[in-house]
């Protein structure tokens, strides 16, 4: 918001317009530079046009800030901010702003009226997707009901049908809440999904209910939730390891989970600077027959240097303990994959039996990246910015903690059997939500039984190390 060019009001009144028409005389428009930061402005009225089923009290809070504007520049800025806020409510399809001078008896000379013209979303929306995976094709049908009761309540339902036996559904109801003038939300969903885990030799079908409470605090964005899920574990085929087979059957997990995320990065996929921290704790055992305590955390630090080089350090680690007996396969930690411990196949490192990875109760994984722009910078400032080359070193390990030995011995085991890879490759930012990598990996340290993938490795995903 620097300098705005404004037209000076005609001083002679409206009759001059006729003259200019008849005589085809071009009126000289004088352009005057005005410093908007010093032009006093006061918002006297805010209109929101186009509200149908939305309740007034749901949106009026959002425009409060506007009344605090003191000069013209400030007002324009606040208008844009307010538009963003209204947009974030997720109930409007279109929002346009109109600023006009105040009219009427109480109008001040520096008074303005701001009008937001909004168009509400339709009551019902739908989606239809098809998805083709490695060994399954699915079609999913979805319905969306935004802003059902006029205060941003949203209902979302999807049903997925696969060529194999993957039938899934998900229905979520979300309601925004305002606590201490900050948006938070409560949501609840029922779901069912199934997936095959060929690396571990089992398939899993989950059916459950969850309740979530999302809120913000000085520590970051929190998600506190309860999850009650019925898990059905089955063997994929006859080759499945017997250790995996022993865990097949039905279990019920009822767990409380808390996640806090602090994200200060400028970009989620290819950040230049900023840090990211996620801490998750889960306690399972409020009813059900699965009891464990699980901690998991992830840290990422980014630092940019000369020539657009970015240095990135990623660390992730977790520990869990079964409270009654052993932990289940589908709760444990797994290490390895083209976006985490590169140079290993998915779940490729850690305890295994007959080629099926069994997961571990402790893991530690890290990565050090040096990102540079593409050589010779093709498509600089545009398309080329979605790509980076990177050199990386990854180290990781997953072991089962033996609580009968000392912490030092356990740590020693974790260090002794560490897996290490280095390599280089190209990273592509896919629409700011996913990441695609093509790497050449050289695994330096691996353990017998690991599923190693040296050479070219391709990966796509959301989370990475």
């Amino acid at each position, binding site marked *: 918001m620097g300098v705005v060019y404004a037209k000076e009001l005609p001083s002679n009144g409206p009759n001059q317009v006729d003259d200019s028409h008849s005589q085809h005389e071009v009126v000289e428009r004088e352009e005057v530079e005005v410093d908007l930061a010093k032009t006093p402005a006061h918002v006297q009225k805010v209109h929101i046009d186009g509200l149908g089923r939305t309740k007034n009290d749901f949106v009026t809070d959002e425009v409060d800030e506007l009344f605090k504007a003191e000069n013209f520049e400030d007002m324009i800025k606040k208008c844009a901010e307010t538009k963003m806020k209204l947009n974030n409510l997720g109930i409007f399809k279109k929002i346009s702003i109109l600023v006009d001078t105040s009219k009427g008896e109480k109008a001040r000379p520096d008074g303005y009226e701001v009008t937001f013209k909004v168009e509400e979303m339709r009551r019902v929306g739908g989606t239809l997707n098809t998805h083709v995976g490695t060994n399954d094709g699915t079609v999913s049908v979805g319905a969306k009901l935004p802003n059902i009761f006029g205060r941003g309540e949203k209902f979302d339902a999807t049903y997925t049908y696969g060529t194999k036996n993957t039938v899934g559904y998900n229905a979520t109801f979300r309601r925004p809440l305002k606590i201490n003038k900050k948006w938070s939300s409560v949501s609840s969903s029922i779901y069912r999904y199934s997936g095959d885990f060929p690396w571990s030799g089992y398939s899993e079908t989950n059916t459950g209910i969850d309740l979530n409470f999302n809120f913000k605090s000085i520590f970051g964005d929190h998600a506190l939730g309860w999850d009650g899920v*019925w898990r059905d574990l089955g063997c994929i085929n*006859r*080759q499945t390891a017997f250790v995996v087979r022993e865990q*097949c*059957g*039905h279990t*019920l997990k009822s767990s409380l989970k808390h996640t806090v995320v602090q994200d200060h990065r400028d970009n989620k996929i290819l950040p230049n600077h900023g840090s990211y921290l996620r801490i998750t704790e889960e306690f399972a055992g409020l*009813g059900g027959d699965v009891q464990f305590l699980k901690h998991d955390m992830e840290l990422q630090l980014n630092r940019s240097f000369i020539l657009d080089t970015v240095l990135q350090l990623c660390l992730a680690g977790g520990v869990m303990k079964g409270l009654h007996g052993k932990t289940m396969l589908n709760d444990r930690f797994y290490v390895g994959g083209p976006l985490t411990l590169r140079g290993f196949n998915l779940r490729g490192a850690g305890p295994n039996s007959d080629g099926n990875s069994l997961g571990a109760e402790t893991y530690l994984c890290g990565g050090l990246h040096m990102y540079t722009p593409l050589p010779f910078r093709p498509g600089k400032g545009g398309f080329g910015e979605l790509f980076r080359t990177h050199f990386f070193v990854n180290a990781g390990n997953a072991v089962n903690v033996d609580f009968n030995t000392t912490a030092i011995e356990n740590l020693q085991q974790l260090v002794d059997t560490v897996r290490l890879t280095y390599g280089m490759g190209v990273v592509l930012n896919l629409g700011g939500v996913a990441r695609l990598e093509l790497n050449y990996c050289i695994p330096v340290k691996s353990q017998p039984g690991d599923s190693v993938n040296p050479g070219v490795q391709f990966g796509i995903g959301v989370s990475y190390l």
Partner: protein
Amino acid sequence: MASLIEQPIAVELGASEPWPDNVCLFQPYENKQILLPDAASCVSVRTFLNMCGLKYTVELRNNAENMSPSGIVPFMKIGPFLISELDPIIAFINTKGHHLSDNLNDSERAEMRAYMSLIDKVMVNAELYLTWCETTTYTEVTKIRYGSPYPWPLNIILPWKRQMEIGRKLKALGWAQKTYEEVCEEVRTCCSALSERLGNQQYFFGNRPSEIDALVFGHLFTILSTSQPKMDLAHIVGEFENLAAFCIHIDNKYFTEIWRNDSTAEIQRHQEGNGQTSNGENSDDSFVKLNGD
């Protein structure tokens, strides 16, 4: 698809190896979980193994049904192989060189197969009918026992789901439409056929036990010795004196004796934990009941 071929080939290759020491038979818990049809097939398999004189241990798992490659209990772990149900187990053990019916001629063997399929058609379906479709038995026994390993609400959902499955199966076989009386009548006909074949002999064919003896004993003994809210099936079987005598004879010969002689040490070992028991140990309460009858 590869596994369809791989498994028989692997079994074929594995057959040349001797009987391993660590053979396990997996089945659900007998005292609070197992249901009549499963119990019958578990007893059949164990009888067959005892008749062959093969060593094995019984492992009790509450998820035995889910662990089984075919979803049916019992199943055996013989070295690297997993084999479920009586027929495949018999076939596998035959490839290992243990034959019970090799003294029979072809026509006797064919007759034996016919009687075995009679048991599969009638007794198995009648047991399934009684367990899952007969309302009193379902609510008083089946629902509680089948749901016993699971927490609420799975202990309601899973028996219900299973009931639907079995209901569909019996409907396809034309059994779901039958009344309880009709089912009893079927069992009576089957028993009289068996009784006639057995006559005054000790075994169904000749003077040596064969597969049919294991199968018949498994079903009849389980029906006789399991206490149910509706004991009609047991009464029907009990009407045929030679069949009841056959059960007692097999029980004494292949369970009580073996179990007295050589597995005391094993029982002690397995009682220490993890749900294992040795040959026939947990049929204990059933024996008492039968002898009391």
